[in-house]
């Protein structure tokens, strides 16, 4: 009797282990183990998970901030960097004279960053296009409302965006990092694309609201 219990126990344990292995490797859809195949059929009631994507080095790499000096307000959870501020992230490089970062609670997302005075941003989009941004002030905000994420970057003080499509200037340029869309308030000038004259297959950048997605800066 004890042997029967022991065999049943071992069989259950083996099936459980195999099922665990199958869940991990189910995307390969190749198995020579009969038990595993049966269990795989059972588990195919739920959609198979997408193949795991390799972690993007862009998002995993840390952001570095260098400056001449800095103040850290522990009560206000704020860091203020002064003098020759350089931000180096996989997506962009930023320089300015002063950078204020609201530090998030443990494990949280940074929700507010202000870059001031001689702000220069060089960002690369997903397609490898370069964007050169200059302004007096750039404000980044991170908000989640009703499961929608908004990450607007508001550029003020003679903001200018130069990329392969041309040069944009306006009183204010708002760039939503989450969606990639850009809005311009009172655009002053939309220059010709930075391409050879006569080339007709390049659209000039649109101005005003609902512009096409732009590369994300941060």
């Amino acid at each position, binding site marked *: 009797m004890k042997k029967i219990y022991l065999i049943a126990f071992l069989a259950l344990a083996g099936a459980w282990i195999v099922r665990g292995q199958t869940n991990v490797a189910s995307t390969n859809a190749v198995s020579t183990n009969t038990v595993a195949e049966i269990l795989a059929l059972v588990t195919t009631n739920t959609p198979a998970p997408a193949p795991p994507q390799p972690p993007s080095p862009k998002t995993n790499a840390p952001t570095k901030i260098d400056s001449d000096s800095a*103040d850290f307000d*522990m009560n206000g959870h704020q860091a203020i960097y002064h003098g020759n501020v350089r931000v180096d992230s996989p997506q962009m490089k930023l320089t300015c004279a002063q950078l204020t970062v609201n530090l998030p609670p443990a494990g949280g997302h940074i929700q507010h960053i202000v870059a001031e005075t001689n702000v220069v941003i060089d960002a690369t989009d997903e397609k490898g296009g370069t964007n050169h941004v200059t302004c007096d002030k750039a404000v980044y905000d991170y908000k989640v409302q009703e499961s929608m994420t908004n990450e607007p970057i508001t550029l003020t003080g003679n903001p200018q965006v130069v990329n392969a499509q041309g040069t944009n200037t306006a009183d204010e340029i708002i760039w939503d990092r989450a969606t990639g869309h850009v809005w311009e308030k009172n655009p002053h000038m939309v220059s010709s694309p930075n391409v050879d004259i006569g080339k007709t297959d390049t659209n000039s950048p649109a101005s005003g609201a609902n512009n096409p997605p732009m590369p994300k*800066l941060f």
Partner: protein
Amino acid sequence: MKMKFHNSVLVATFFAATWFAATIVRAQQNAAGHASDFSSAEYYDAPHAQQMKSRISGAEASPQPGGLLDIKKLKLEEFGVDGRLEAVAEAPECVYDSMNGLANSPDHLQMQTGDGNLSVEGEGFLWRQTNHWLTISNHVQTVIKGVMESKTGL
């Protein structure tokens, strides 16, 4: 004559004992002035009066003129109301003004948040305990991990 001898012995013994006692007292004073495992804590106001807000500690503390303390192996810790470690800063040495709540040093300082997502280092610092304000004077380098990631990648 015999009596005089006894008296001189007594006097010599007295002076020897006095000198010996004075030596002992001086040694104790030295030991008391050079403290080890120095620690000074600040607590939250009520209703969290039992919760530590910050702590400055060191492996050694030596008194300096003007009521200052020379602290070796400085450690500054900041805690949340819930007791969670919010930040810890370390430096090899600093001068601590306990009366005004100031700690400063030209030495290297390393700081890290409790979750390890942000680490900072630089040369020279001033810590104002009264308003929990840390200034790093030169060559500030910060590394932020994982908090600028967006769902869409960039």
